[in-house]
């Protein structure tokens, strides 16, 4: 269990592959409209309403997926011991928030830690104080984090190092959920930055 939310079972695998294919098609522009993406993805990982995880924020508050309904949410997985990719993602998001200006007020941004052993709420708070204050951190027990990753269709894997320390491989994209709680798009690490903000705006526009 503690080894993480590696996809469990065949059904999960099929869903994950379907999800990746859908996202790939989305990125390559093969899918003309979003409806089709949501159909391909199914509900798992695509709909906050159907998720059941519970995590603790860096401020010590219990958070559930249903509490995000009503606002656009950006969600990504990472950990504070991650020296390269995670700061980069945090900085990218800070840039998007800046570009969105006052429009970003209706936006919630969440980093879900894939390293609950080291990333306690206090550690997350300390680390995130170096970045945009609108980015919140979420962590929990190893089982709670595994549950969340499973719900989001995210994967992570603890990789031991020679010196007894470890690092964690993890899903790196930023998931964008619209105010109805549906997955609107995924912004990849190496996506052209000029497409990121339009993706977020598209999710926000569903706010009617």
């Amino acid at each position, binding site marked *: 269990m503690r080894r993480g939310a590696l996809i469990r079972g065949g059904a999960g695998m099929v869903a994950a592959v379907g999800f990746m294919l859908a996202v790939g098609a989305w990125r390559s522009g093969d899918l003309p409209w979003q409806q089709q993406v949501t159909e391909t993805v199914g509900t798992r990982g695509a709909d906050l309403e159907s998720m059941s995880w519970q995590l603790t924020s860096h401020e010590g508050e219990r958070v559930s997926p249903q509490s995000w309904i009503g606002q656009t949410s950006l969600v990504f997985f990472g950990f504070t011991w991650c020296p390269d990719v995670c700061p980069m993602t945090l900085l990218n998001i800070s840039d998007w928030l800046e570009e969105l200006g006052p429009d970003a007020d209706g936006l919630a941004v969440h980093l879900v830690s894939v390293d609950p052993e080291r990333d306690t709420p206090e550690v997350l708070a300390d680390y995130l104080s170096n*970045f945009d204050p609108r980015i919140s951190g979420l962590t929990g027990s190893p089982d709670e984090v595994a549950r969340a990753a499973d719900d989001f269709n995210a994967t992570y894997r603890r990789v031991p190092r020679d010196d007894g320390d470890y690092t964690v491989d993890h899903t790196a994209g930023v998931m964008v959920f619209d105010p109805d709680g549906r997955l609107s798009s995924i912004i990849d*690490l190496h996506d052209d930055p000029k497409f990121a903000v339009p993706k977020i705006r598209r999710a926000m526009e569903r706010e009617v």
Partner: protein
Amino acid sequence: MLKSTAAALVLATILPASAFAECVEVTQGNITVSAAWSRATIGTERPAVFYVTIRNDGGSDERLVGIETPVADMPMLHESVMENGAARMSHVDQIVIAPIDAVSLEPGGYHGMLMDLQTELVEGTTFPVTLLFEKSGPVTIDTAVLPLRAREAACEEAL
């Protein structure tokens, strides 16, 4: 008079672009190393990073085969790679710099991974990193510690 106006004009044009100081550059043989930077750390438990630009003015490949620094007991060359949407870091044995070309160790790609950190890296300080090249030998450069939220070197590259 005319001359000083012209000079002022030139200065005014140049200034916005060079709000930062010029990057420290170290040249040895055909290799020039510049814009070495790192991010501040919280304590010493987390690994730190090392980013740098390497230029090869020679006529054949050069290879970066390792790094050394007094601030970390286990420095390594790493690359962040994406596989099926997941990010992982892998150890790289060498980084090839083609003739008349430059390679940057930069966020999201190649980086020096400074593990078993011996000292907290404090913003505003510098520390030495020695790059080990196959042909040009060791080249040591002062590395600037930038804030945790830095995304690039805080200097102008003369490349």
